[in-house]
């Protein structure tokens, strides 16, 4: 992690506690993802807390209940976790092998933070699923997932594209597209109980 754990501030001092500072940094990066512009904040001060929070939230919401479990249901918590992290590592390795000049953890940081729109989509889908099921329900979810998927792609491309050699940009971006597509598919096909 970029910010090592320090001892908490003493009571009575005016300096902000490191925990609040970390949370503020994470929150600031969330804002950068939601309104992507070309800035270096995500790359310069990378941290993996945000991706961890998002991944755990997504995995908790996506896991199937243990009741019907065995027979070919949805993914388990560990499976989602493994897919997200293994996918992010593979994409990072791919972009480095193609000659990109981004560091390993910076890339993981960007990919992890750009899952934020899809996590929001998952929350919305879960709420929509509380209503009556049917084609309209599905259309709403489909629309939300597509919008958030596009948002994720745009955000991550804005951060990652500059670090690739110019004649290989498409080669480096395509795996990102595949990664978010698979996550979107998992979100869209989530059926409760």
């Amino acid at each position, binding site marked *: 992690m970029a910010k090592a754990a320090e001892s908490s501030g003493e009571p009575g001092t005016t300096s902000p506690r490191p925990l609040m500072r970390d949370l503020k940094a994470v929150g600031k990066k969330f804002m950068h993802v939601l309104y992507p512009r070309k800035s270096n904040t995500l790359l310069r001060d990378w941290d993996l807390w945000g991706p961890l929070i998002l991944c755990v939230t997504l995995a908790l919401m996506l896991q199937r209940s243990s009741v019907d479990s065995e*027979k*070919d*249901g*949805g*993914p388990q918590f560990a*499976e989602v976790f493994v897919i997200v992290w293994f996918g992010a590592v593979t994409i990072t390795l*791919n972009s*480095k*092998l*193609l*000659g990109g000049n981004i560091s390993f953890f910076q890339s993981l940081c960007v990919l992890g933070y750009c899952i934020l729109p899809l996590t929001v989509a998952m929350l919305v889908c879960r709420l929509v699923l509380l209503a009556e099921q049917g084609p309209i329900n599905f259309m709403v979810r489909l629309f939300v997932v597509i919008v958030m998927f596009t948002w994720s792609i745009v955000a991550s491309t804005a951060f990652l594209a500059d670090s690739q050699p110019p*004649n*290989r*940009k*498409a*080669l480096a971006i*395509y*795996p990102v597209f*595949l990664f978010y*597509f*698979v996550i979107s*598919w*998992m979100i869209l*096909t*989530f*059926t409760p109980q």
Partner: protein
Amino acid sequence: MAAVGDLQFEEFGNAAATAAENPGATTISIEGPGESPAHQAGLPRGSGGEEDDELLGNDDSDKTELLAGQKKSSPFWTFEYYQTFFDVDTYQVFDRIKGSLLPIPGKNFVRLYIRSNPDLYGPFWICATLVFAIAISGNLSNFLIHLGEKTYHYVPEFRKVSIAATIIYAYAWLVPLALWGFLMWRNSKVMNIVSYSFLEIVCVYGYSLFIYIPTAVLWIIPQKAVRWILVMIALGVSGSVLAMTFWPAVREDNRRIALATIVTIVLLHTLLSVGCLAYFFDAPEMDHLPTATAAPNQTVAAAKAR
């Protein structure tokens, strides 16, 4: 000033002979128009006639082996070693994919497109896309087939992704390994003109799987006839790419062994596509309109029996 009679034309033979007999001489060789400039080491070439021998690869097979060996100079435990396998640009990947979709008789995929620069990007990501294409299309197709049945409960069938991944990646790596071993063994018995490195074989197999991605998406259509026509088309295209690539490598050999090799290659490819179709895609029932209560039960029972 020399007399006219003393002037004679001097034959300039090939560069190697000149260099051999006169070590101090410099030789200049002009490369043919089709050479890819970025990836050739500076070996002097006597003639730029590589375009003529695409299918046979007559006199450049040992040169390409040498070049391939020259390129990978970093030891295998460094990162740079693996970077040489990803040394492709976007347009090169597109060209290779195009070459795998349009097999032209007489053009060898390896000679024409790979040209001693095999990459691992194409095979790896084409296989990854294919895994998800098959799993997602299979899921979608089953959903559409059983739509309307009262007793059908949709499940995302997430397990099938890992099964698909195992099958596809095993095929894309183990079959080239076996084929390479076989060709090496035959090479030791019969002097073949054309020989491929392991990575080139992996490359050909990886790119030849590309046609199955749109095929898998089109397999969503729940008509048996459509699906089998798609299988035929895909098999025809990728099978012919593979056959035309490996025919020059076994042509010098015993006729029967050569034919058996090509037939085995195509047969394994058939097995892969038919197996994927059978396992991931439920059979479309002839009549899946839930008109009577008896019909859905029968179709569900038939689907469960598969």
